[in-house]
């Protein structure tokens, strides 16, 4: 099972936490000048031209816009009580979970993975609520992701993922 990335968006459409397990494919132009060690796996493949010059921040904005539109489309077609769960392409699968407070949890995995909605829910309930919401030092809102990526949350996430999603 391959885990690509994980994002949390708050209700102000801002990405307050993101984590990647594989380096994103880098455009060849930026990497070519540097001598490459053999260990790099993902950067050896050609990046599609459309991705040139795109940063992590751009990715986050794209993903937010995408899940926002898909969620609206699903609600338009399936009715107000319908929720968007996941989509799959030939290469990856995007899992989606929205909390009652309109926070959005998004996870990208390989295509063989079944629903991760329950896990995303657990991440919210057992990790985010426990270590971020209940943390007296963290602010109520998290502009720029302040207060989310604290040590306990990071460790908890790491432990949770190795426990329920073994590689």
């Amino acid at each position, binding site marked *: 099972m*391959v885990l*690509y*990335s994980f994002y949390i968006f708050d209700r102000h459409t801002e990405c307050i936490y993101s984590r990647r397990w*594989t380096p*994103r*494919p880098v455009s060849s132009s930026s990497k070519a000048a540097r001598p490459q060690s053999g260990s790099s796996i*993902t950067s050896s*493949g*050609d*990046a*599609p031209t*459309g*991705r040139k010059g*795109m940063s992590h921040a751009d*990715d986050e904005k*794209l*993903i937010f*816009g*995408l899940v926002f*539109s*898909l969620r609206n*489309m*699903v609600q*338009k*077609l*399936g*009715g107000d*009580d*319908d*929720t*968007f*769960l*996941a*989509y*799959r*392409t*030939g*290469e*990856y699968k*995007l899992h989606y979970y929205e909390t009652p407070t309109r926070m959005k949890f998004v996870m*990208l995995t390989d295509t063989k993975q079944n*629903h991760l909605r329950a896990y995303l829910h657990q991440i919210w309930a057992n990790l985010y609520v426990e270590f971020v919401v209940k943390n007296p030092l963290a602010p109520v809102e998290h502009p720029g992701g302040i207060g989310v990526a604290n040590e306990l949350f990071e460790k908890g996430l790491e432990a949770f993922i190795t426990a329920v999603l073994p590689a």
Partner: protein
Amino acid sequence: MVVFALFIISKAGGLIYNREFHSGLSKLTSNDYLMLAGSFHGMHAITKQLCPAMPAPVNPSSTAAVLAPSPFSGRPSGLEVLESTHFRMQCFQTLTGTKFLLFTEPQQPNIDSMMRKIYELYADFVMKNPFYTVEMPIRCEKFDRGLDGFVKVRS
């Protein structure tokens, strides 16, 4: 076994066919459907962009590759299946960029073979019809009838 609806989106992002087989999805105005098709067209392109790892060129295991062996197998395929609590949407993109969206129940089996059959009907009764103009809305009686017979037999 329920098939809700079929949409066909042209390569320019226009809705050229929409057909409801079973009620279950919300009724929208035709304008809303057109907008939905247009925005889906854009979303599909974004899902291609977001591909976190390039597909292995040796084993293109995607369903699109089975339906139509693609000379572009090294490229990301874009959205293929969308799941929600009420329905499941399968998207099949032909080599020429036409997209077929099939809305079914979440647990529907054999969607691939169903999609193949629909593609076949499209190739026969739409593309071989002398009175159909490419990229324009599809109004072909035999295509409608073929879909009817096919969906009825299956349900």
